[in-house]
Each structure stands twice: as structure tokens, then as C-alpha cells.
């Protein structure tokens, strides 16, 4: 089906890649462009430069409240999903046991499910149990959503780990916990940091679960959703959106740098050992 595209006409393939990258990036670059535009509408030609939309963000208490909520949720989700991810990733990469495939499948399932369906199912069980909707319910739900991402990062981090180091440590009389702390942890630390950053980013941008489960305490995406009804609020939303996109890109870049440094180091050590 995509056969024709796969053939290297080295002349047009780079052109295609360029067009594709433009398609990916232009919509994201538009938000910052219009957030500095001195007009309340998003039309060309641009009407001059202003930073007033950014300045207005600081005096908006509802927005600051939502930002605080997002921080609380993001940090909690990052820690919880990384801790749960460590258990699962470690179990999968270190041991072999019956039901391993099924267990992994269940934890990874949110990648292959329409988000609205597990949002709705969580909402039902939470209301059934008589629990109030709050930031706690958002955190509980988002951890399920972030676990597959945390797991992917952690599995690839743990996978490159040379087990003979651990065996040596155990043979030399170190306890299992001591081995994890003194041998395993330093090697897998970059994967942990990477997992924390990725989970935080996913949580910061997650909308559907927050929308269904947040009750009266909106996170930033839920706040933005509420503002979209008012055309006059658009420039402020664009400024806020640009800040959020910048934060996401910075966190992801950081996580990628940490991961790649660790990869280089592991490779260098592997070469030395060999």
C-alpha cells in the first residue's frame, strides 16, 4: 500500500521529510506567534508586537490556581507512576514468571484503549464508591494513563543493565536491598529521571481524565477548555499555551539528554569490559 513511498528516490525523499516536519511543527509554532500579536484575533497580517497577553496571565487568579493544581497532580503522578513502573519494569526484565505476558499487557493496555472509555469507567467506579471527585481522583486516574510511558522508558533503561554486576555484589555478601541501592540504582538512575520527566509532561498535558475526574478543581488543560468558549479570552489562552508548550519541550529535551548520556556511558563501559 505505501510501497511507492518506500523506494529511495534520494532526490524527493528529503523534500518529503521536510514537508512532513513542517506539517508537524507549523501548528505548534503558530501559538507562540499569535501570542505576541497585538490583536485579539488570529489573522494575517500580524498587527504588531506585544507582551500584554503574557502580563495578563500573572493577574489571573483562576489560572494561577489551575497551575498550582497541575503542579500538584503532575508531581504526584510522576512519582507514583515511576515507583509503580520500577516494580513492574524490574520484575519483567529481571525475572521470568507465569502470567508475565498478561500482566504486561494489562499495564500497557491504556495505549490501546480510547481514553474516554477508561475515563468513564473510572468515573463510574469512583462515584459508586461514594468518593468525592478531587485532585486525588485525577492523580489516581492519570497514573494508569502514564504507566505505559514510564514503563517503556524504564524497561529500556533496565534492559541495558549488566546483571553480572548484581550477581557479583550478591556473591560478595551484599543483601538484595543493598545491591539495589548501591549497584542497580546508580546504573538505572538516568532511566528513573527520564521516567519522572516524561510522566510529568504527560500528566501536565492530559485533558480527558482531568476533565472527567477533577470535580471543582481544574488543572490547566481543563481551565483552558473552559476559556475556549469565549473568543475574547483566546489571546490569553494562546500565551498560556505557549508557556506550556515551552515547558513540555524543555522537559522532554532534558529527559532525552539524560537518557542519551547514560546510553553513551553504558556503551563506553561495555566496550571497556569487552
Amino acid at each position, binding site marked *: 500500500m505505501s510501497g*511507492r513511498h518506500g523506494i529511495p528516490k534520494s532526490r524527493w525523499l528529503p523534500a518529503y521529510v521536510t514537508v512532513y516536519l513542517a506539517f508537524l511543527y507549523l501548528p505548534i509554532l*503558530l501559538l507562540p506567534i499569535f501570542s505576541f500579536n497585538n490583536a485579539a484575533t*488570529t489573522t494575517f497580517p500580524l498587527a504588531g508586537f506585544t507582551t500584554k497577553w503574557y502580563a495578563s496571565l500573572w493577574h489571573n487568579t483562576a489560572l494561577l490556581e489551575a497551575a498550582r493544581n497541575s503542579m500538584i497532580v503532575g508531581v504526584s503522578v510522576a512519582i507514583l507512576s515511576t515507583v509503580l513502573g520500577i516494580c513492574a519494569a524490574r520484575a519483567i526484565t529481571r*525475572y521470568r514468571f507465569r502470567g508475565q505476558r498478561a500482566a504486561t499487557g494489562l499495564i500497557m493496555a491504556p*495505549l490501546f484503549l480510547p481514553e474516554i472509555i477508561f475515563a468513564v469507567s473510572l468515573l463510574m467506579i469512583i462515584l459508586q464508591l461514594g468518593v468525592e471527585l478531587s485532585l486525588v481522583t485525577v492523580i489516581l486516574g492519570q497514573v494508569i494513563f502514564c504507566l505505559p510511558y514510564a514503563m517503556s522508558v524504564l524497561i529500556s533503561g533496565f534492559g541495558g543493565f549488566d546483571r553480572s554486576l548484581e550477581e557479583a555484589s550478591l556473591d560478595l555478601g551484599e543483601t538484595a536491598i543493598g545491591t539495589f541501592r548501591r549497584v542497580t540504582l546508580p546504573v538505572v538512575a538516568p532511566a528513573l529521571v527520564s521516567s519522572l520527566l516524561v510522566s510529568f509532561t504527560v500528566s501536565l498535558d492530559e485533558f480527558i481524565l482531568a476533565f472527567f475526574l477533577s470535580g471543582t478543581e481544574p488543572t490547566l488543560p481543563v481551565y483552558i477548555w473552559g476559556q475556549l468558549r469565549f473568543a475574547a479570552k483566546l489571546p490569553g489562552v494562546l500565551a498560556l499555551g505557549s508557556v506550556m508548550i515551552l515547558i513540555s519541550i524543555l522537559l522532554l529535551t532534558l529527559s532525552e539528554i539524560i537518557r542519551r548520556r547514560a546510553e553513551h556511558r553504558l556503551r563506553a563501559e561495555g566496550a571497556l569490559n569487552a
Partner: protein
Amino acid sequence: MAVLSGTAVEHRPAHPPKNRLRWTASEEASGLALISPTLLYAVALLFLPILIVVAYSFWTQDYLTIDRTFTLQNYKTALGEPIYQDLLMRSLVISLVVSVVTVTVSYPIAWFISFHGGVHKNLWLFLITVPCWTSYLLRVMSWKVILGYGGVMNTGLLSIGVIDKPLTSLLYNSNAVVITLVHSWAAFAILPIFVSLEKVDRSLIEAAHDLGDNKLMSFLRVTLPLSLPGVISAFLIVMIPTVGDYVTPKLVGGKDGVMIATAIQAQFGKGANWPLGAALSVTTMVIVSAMAGLVVLGLKLLVRMAK
């Protein structure tokens, strides 16, 4: 980026322990013990809730009380009412079109990175995935800004004189929904295809060339079949989640772009008919899974024919 690409990797211990003492000290017990917190969490907050949705879909609601006698009435409504039929049909068509388009336009990118990425493969993957990690809601909003009546596309085209009056056909229809979703899911299609292309043994392609296949033939007979697992994952990872997309149809779909998620959400909001909402959810999942299964089968057949 390692995310997603790691999902397919499974690591088996190279040396199973030689002396198994008791089961509690065995590898199996250790593995189960270690994974149990995560597994229990997923069972409690993913598996059980889904079971409850399935259960609810066979019950009925009378104002605030739930009648737990088994009934198929909700499914009759979900499958019989024209409005739900239309929404379901449109959601399925949109998710099929989105996944076909996404996989088709993404394959050459994955191919390019895998075969021509050189030492910068990771950097390429990072560049491709970054936009997909930024807020989904904001990306949809940005498409609204692009395609709107007074939006970037219209005002841009007007000012350079390509059109005399703004086009109204850009926003608030299924096409806008498809474009936005293709943009959203691009990286999710590229990563699995890339991973499977990386596993293709390059010497097989050379062998095909040496044996007289031209580039197209060697692609169809060697590269494509070997990368099929990645293409299939890409299909599943795009098609199944998009069928239940809520934000995109709401923001850019207009009246003609409404999808099933809006109807599901309504049953949990003011409309408050949980059993019907549950039946709509289950119906959507079952049908989209069946459709995904058919697509996978079809792909396998196509590739077999190409050989």
C-alpha cells in the same frame, strides 16, 4: 525516544538459577511479588472499572436507582437508534481513514530514519516525537486557528490573492477532524514502524538486489513483509484510540464531525443514563476491535500476495 519502542522488548534472564530451594524463593515468586503492586493497581483502576462498565451495560437505570436484572435493551438502543448508528458509523470511518492515512504518510519517514538516519537516528526520532508530546488540547486548538473562517489559512490566502472570499469548507467537518487527528497521531505510527524496520536484516535486501529484484520488488518482497509487525502495531495504536476521541470532534468537527464520544459523555453528564453510556462504550470497543482485526488480516493477505 525510547518511549513506545521499548514495549516490544522482552528480556529473558540468561542464567536461570540452578538451585531452586522453595517456591517462595523461586524466580517466579520473586517476579510476581515485585510486579504485584503495579499489577494490583492496574487491576483495581483499569480492569475492574472496565468490568463494571460491561456489567452496567446489561442493567437499567430508573431515575437514581439501578435495576440489576439482565437486559439487552441498552444494546438495542445503542445499535438500533439512527442517531447512535450514525455516530458509530462516522466514528469508525474516521478512525479507519485516520489510521490508513497516518500509517501511509508515516511509513516513508520511519523508513528514511531507519535507512538514512545514519548516526543521528535518535535525534531524528526526537525531532519527530516532540510535537506529539506537547498538549493535545493546544494542538487541536491550533488547527482551529489555522482552519477557521477568519483563520490563518483563509486570511493568508486572501492576502496573497489566491481566493476572493474566505472558504467555509475548511473547518467544522469530518475533513478537519481527520487532518487534526493525523497530525496528533503521527509519532505513534512512526515509532513502531521504525522499531520493526531496524530489525530488518540489511543483507536480505542486498541479496534480493543481487538476485535481480529492482528496488520496488525488493521493498515489496523483503522490507515491507518484514516490517509488517510494526505496521500492524501502528494501525492498532492509532485506530483504536481515535475512535473514541472527544476533543477533536468537539473543537473542529462542527455538526458534521460529531463522533461517538460526545454521545457517551452525554450519558454521564446531564443526560445521566449510565447503562446506555456503558452499552455505547462496549459496542464501540467491540466493533472497533473487530474492524482492527479485519484490517490486520487484510494487511497480512496483501503482503502475502505481493510476495
